């Protein structure tokens, strides 16, 4: 039944995207004067309002970067908070221009749902957290045989959990809850040995535990959850802009260009950096995208490079303190690889 509904939605979405695509999104956005960006209603580190009610987070900052690339101003963006259910409809119906809502890149979404994923802004995956005081000596998920595991109902998390334990011939006892808060409370009260959800979520959950330091996130990742921004199919120019904004953020980090030093870097002698920042006189990189040639300068001034965005929202600069791990640059053993801008 679920497949059937998804199919119908998908085909309806495709039929619509065909007509929506004929309009150039970039021109629409420029005419409107702002970028409309779909984000999560609230997910720690990715999109949430701060004390002043402004949106903050990694997904939010990516939208600000795209807005900066287009308008030279990272504030020219409006956010639409979307639930997991209405996110694709919102993109297909043209309500939003870009979906930056911790959405996993899958083939089904890329094809049947008519999306184009521009990159992976955060490599996530389902993991486990345990109370190290209760289970001393456990440092791998493979030692969890016979454990009771707290999990939220009706999510793919539950399926991944079952798959992982049966694939490794281990017994487990799922303790299923309807709501996030219930799951947290039960785990904190010691009703289960382990807690499973996406790893980025585990770090947020840990902050709400009565003794956070006792809890350890295990290294195993049992599912691939590459999260990234997506756009409608059929508008290649718009797709390129979003995609290369992402690569520009990565390249800037690799070249050591930060929010603080971007103006000095414009006078750098390195041809790579000069090309990236549009300082070469004959450069056409920005205009070829439909933007101005100082688009990367604008992005970095608005949000900083990828590393700065990461550290500010989920890394050491935030209470979440998530390590870069696989999200480090390829030069540092991670998976983030910015395609060359030349």
């Amino acid at each position, binding site marked *: 039944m679920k497949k059937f509904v998804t199919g119908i*939605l998908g085909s*309806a*979405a495709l039929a*619509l995207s065909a*007509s*929506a695509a004929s*309009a150039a999104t970039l021109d*629409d956005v420029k005419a409107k004067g702002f970028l409309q960006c779909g984000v*999560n*209603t*609230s*997910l*720690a*580190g990715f*999109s*949430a*309002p*701060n*004390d*002043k*009610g*402004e949106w903050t987070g990694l997904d939010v900052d990516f939208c600000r970067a795209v807005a900066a690339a287009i308008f030279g101003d990272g504030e020219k963006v*409006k956010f*639409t*908070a*979307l*639930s997991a*259910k*209405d996110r694709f*409809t*919102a993109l*297909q*119906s*043209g*309500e939003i221009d870009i979906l930056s809502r911790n959405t996993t890149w899958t083939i089904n979404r890329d094809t049947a749902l008519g999306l184009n994923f521009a990159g992976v802004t955060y490599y996530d995956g389902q993991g486990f957290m345990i109370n190290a005081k209760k289970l001393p000596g456990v440092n791998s998920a493979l030692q969890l045989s016979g454990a009771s595991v707290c999990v939220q109902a009706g999510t793919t998390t539950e399926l991944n959990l079952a798959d992982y334990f049966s694939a490794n011939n281990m017994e487990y006892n799922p303790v299923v809850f309807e709501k*996030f*808060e219930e799951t*947290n409370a039960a785990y*904190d009260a010691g009703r289960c040995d382990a807690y499973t959800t996406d790893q980025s979520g585990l770090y*947020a959950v840990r*902050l*709400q*535990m*009565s*003794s*956070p*330091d006792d809890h350890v996130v295990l290294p195993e990742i049992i599912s691939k959850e590459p999260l990234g921004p997506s756009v409608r199919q059929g508008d290649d120019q718009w797709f390129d802009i979003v995609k290369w904004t992402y690569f520009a953020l990565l390249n800037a980090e690799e070249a050591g260009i930060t929010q603080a030093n971007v103006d000095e870097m414009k006078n750098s002698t390195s041809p790579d950096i000069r090309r990236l920042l549009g300082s070469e006189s004959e450069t056409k990189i920005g205009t070829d995208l439909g933007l101005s040639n100082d688009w990367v300068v604008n992005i970095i001034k608005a949000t900083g490079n990828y590393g700065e965005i990461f550290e500010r929202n989920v890394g050491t600069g*935030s*209470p*979440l303190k998530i390590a870069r791990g696989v999200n480090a640059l390829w030069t540092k053993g991670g998976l983030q690889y910015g395609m060359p801008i030349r």
Partner: protein
Amino acid sequence: MQEHSMSFVRTEMTPATAAPRSQAGIGAWLRKNLFSTPLNSALTLVALLILAWAVPRMLNWLFFDAIWVGADRTACLTTEQGGELPAGWSGACWPFVTSRFGQFMFGRYPLDERWRVMLTGAIFVALLVPLMIPRIPWKRLNAALFFGAFPFIAYFLLVGGVFGLRYVETSLWGGLLVTLVISYVGIVVSLPLGILLALGRRSHMPIVKLLSVVFIETVRGVPLVTVLFMASFMLPLFVPPGMTFDKLLRALIGVALFASAYMAEVVRGGLQAIPRGQYEGADSLGLGYWQKMGLIIMPQALKLVIPGIVNTFIGMFKDTTLVLIISMFDLLGVVKQNISGDPTWATPQTAKTGYIFAAAIFWIFCFGMSRYSIWMERRLDTGHRR
């Protein structure tokens, strides 16, 4: 008539004596209400024990052990959690609420435009309070302003875009503002519409009757959640791309139609309780249909169903929380959003504090409505009690 030398009847009244000790005073009250039978005594003791156990804990958690000032989560953390409070501490984390108070009230309504919301609120109170106090004259003018002019004033003030006011899109609205806007529109639309539907359902005109019955039964037969879902997820796929309906408007229409259908049935209950003689009496006076309904039937019927009407209002007030599923943030939605999404305030106490705050606000409004309706019932009671 004979005269007796001895009188058998006292000539003066005996002075009144105090009631026996067993019938008056605190002791008697206690015995009568709390310890009348062994079972009741036992229940009283159990209840007292539960109160003695729970109330100090609650007060401690809410007030005495609570943290009142702080800049971020570290203010509400114990030493083992990385803060400075003694291990094992538990208490409300009120600085979370104070730092987010603006959001809980206004959502993400722009900071420098919030005076507009407060002005709207002030006008609302200034019009509502005199309307609710019977002694104050000019009721007609007051009602006309409250139900007729106020919606327009509120619309222009809150939405803006005219008279030099900045346009504030409804996706920025949130918190108590959204809760009250939806409730106000629901109440103001549902009562008259519900009365009309109830009259329609009892009408002798077949088409009017059929339409009323179909509307009431259809709307009552579908959960509000479903309607909000359809309006939010399916509607955008069927309208031309780029064309969007305001989400708040969708929610307003959904909630108002819903409340109307329920209200219609409540009012119909009142209509059915009016004896036939009242209708016939009105007819014999030569009153037309609207005069009959407006002067004779409705005043009696509505008075009878005040509890039902207020019940519907309270239910609707709480149903506004469902708009969270179409990503509108009412009071509860904003509280939830701030709890789950914000690492700067993530502590074990944050969620409890936030939910208790939301519950308290909802309780104040619902309790207020309930007390006012009880008072109104007593005032309008003209001897129909059975």
